[in-house]
């Protein structure tokens, strides 16, 4: 392929990678800090998308407001869910966590189908982002995709700042590396967990809301994202935000160019990538040596 095409493909890879990062970062935090494996995380992505769909008529063109409202709702939902459900999982072993969250997926999917049915729905792009610009001689690139990438980047940096600059972030990092130590520091661990979980849900939901206008909303949109996110977390290293970012981008590139060059085998690419990383660094790319 010529250079221009190559560059555009890179752009696509980055854009996909960043979106993945938004979902995976929440997942990796929840893993890293609570040590809970949450299969239902994909459902939060779906929740976000459907929130965007449900809220768009209410807020109309107030896109920013819609996002904020969605994030707040999702965070609240996450906070409650942690209190009502996940807080009982910490003492359980991984096996039971897997089964309980697996059951949660079934429940969420059915609730979704009861609430909004099984049809596909589109979500409008805000007018001020609806245009697109010419990209070389090739094609037009919608402004909204640019926005999506930028938004993801902003969130990524914000997240990075929170984790590395604030007291909460300090506790999070400590929690990710050594849970006992945090307890030692006299931190209210339950509250920390609740906040982190709510944050994780909010992140996934935000990703869903940003993606909704691009992907539209449809049944089962969560679980396809989930497994790729697992791969991202494994590659990046549990609990590491930076790792999640790097891994997401890697996956983005492998997926994008896989589709172009080995159409038939493209589905396998990301998993091969994971295998390679496992051979090379079983703890993931960015796992701190503890």
């Amino acid at each position: 392929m010529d250079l221009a095409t190559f560059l555009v493909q890179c752009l696509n890879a980055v854009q996909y990678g960043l979106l993945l990062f938004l979902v995976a970062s929440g997942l990796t935090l929840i893993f890293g800090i609570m040590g809970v494996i949450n299969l239902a995380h994909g459902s939060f992505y779906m929740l976000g998308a459907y929130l965007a769909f449900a809220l768009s008529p209410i807020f109309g063109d107030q896109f920013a407001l819609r996002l904020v409202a969605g994030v707040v709702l999702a965070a609240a939902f996450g906070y409650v869910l942690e209190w009502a459900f996940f807080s009982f999982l910490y003492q359980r072993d991984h096996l039971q966590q897997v089964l309980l969250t697996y059951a949660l997926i079934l429940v969420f999917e059915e609730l979704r189908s009861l609430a909004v049915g099984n049809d596909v729905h589109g979500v409008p792009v805000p007018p001020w982002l609806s245009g697109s610009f010419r990209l070389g001689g090739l094609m037009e690139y919608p402004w909204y995709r640019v926005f999506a990438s930028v938004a993801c980047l902003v969130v990524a940096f914000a997240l990075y700042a929170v984790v590395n600059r604030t007291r909460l972030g300090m506790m999070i990092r400590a929690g990710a590396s050594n849970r006992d130590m945090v307890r030692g520091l006299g931190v209210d661990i339950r509250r920390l967990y609740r906040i982190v979980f709510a944050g994780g849900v909010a992140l996934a939901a935000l990703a869903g809301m940003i993606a909704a206008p691009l992907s539209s909303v449809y049944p089962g949109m969560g679980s396809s994202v989930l497994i790729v996110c697992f791969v991202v977390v494994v590659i990046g290293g549990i609990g590491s935000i930076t790792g999640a970012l790097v891994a997401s981008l890697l996956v983005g590139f492998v997926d994008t160019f896989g589709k172009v060059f080995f159409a038939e085998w493209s589905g396998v690419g990301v998993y091969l990538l994971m295998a390679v990383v496992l051979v090379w660094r079983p703890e993931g790319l960015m796992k701190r040596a503890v």
Partner: protein
Amino acid sequence: MRPTFTTLATALVATAFAAPAFAQSGPIKVGLMLPYSGTYASLGNAIENGFKLYVQEQGGKLGGREVQYFKVDDESEPSKATDNVNKLIKRDGVDVLVGTVHSGVALAMAKAARENNVLMVIPNAGADAITGALCSAGVVRSSFSNWQPGYAMGIVAGQKGVKRAMTVTWNYAAGTESVKGFAEGLEKGGGKVIKDLNLPFPGVEFQALLTEIAAQKPDAVYSFFAGGGAVKFVKDYAAAGLNKTIPLYGPGFLTDGTLEAQGASAQGMLTTLHYADDLNTPRNNAFRKAYAIAYKAQPDVYSVQGYDAAQILAAGLKAVDGDLSAGKRDALTTAMHKTVVDSPRGKFALSAAGNPIQDMYLREVKGNNNEFRSIAVKALADPARGCKL
């Protein structure tokens, strides 16, 4: 304690599924194996409604016998298909199978139907093999073969002077079969497919493929997607500005039941299908009226397929006065194959392999409707490759 549990459980199984005795008199047992949960649930309901509508029009009787329904949710889950179909065949002892939407499931059903010598009418699943290599006298289809709409669109593209085309679809049978049909039709018109693009099902990350299309600059693109994929692909295609320079063609499923979600990005798209909602024939209008009254909802192509499934079955049963005994079997199946179905989509006959020989319509998206434009191919028959019938 434990042994009693084990035996109790097995006993439970035993009693729960003891098969009822087969009956020649009494109602005809129709097994509806359709998706009632998950992504295809709405299709399943449409098909069931269509089927029942026709039976009601016949006074609730087929071949002079009452109809008794048995329902199983096939979950669109091929790996469970054999178990699910056996519930109908072996547990409920149905005389006729009606189903389903998902091709993989339908293939397993057809196999079971053949092995247990049960009649089967397929109201949607388009897998070519069902009326091809795996065809059998007792299995007929009221819908289409994946090949048909693709081929028709290929012909249309050829007429429009398309020389270099590309195809995009998911890595799954329905997609690849549809794409093959298109390529075949296009070559008739002197064009050819320069590249097939595909991605894992049910992935929806299309940007890479769109970029590839933009780079190759074909005269046209043919794509097969359904549900969420269809919506997203059409939107992304338009968002990438490709629809301005490179027309996007596809089978009707690309724009059926998805227009509300696709919105502006689908306007003016051309698709081929064996049905169009606004088909202005007395038969279609009557059907739509009756359906709307019966179910307070607008029918779609799936309701039509369900409706016609009942018609084909009725024709067969009529010929033998509802006598399903082995002796009358041949007469029954022959009648089903010979019947000319007066369908809302227009009259059609069945091929030897049991697939409709039907007109393929060219439709154009206007607003939220697929408007009938012209007949793309008249009385198109599936090649039924590999069928011995």
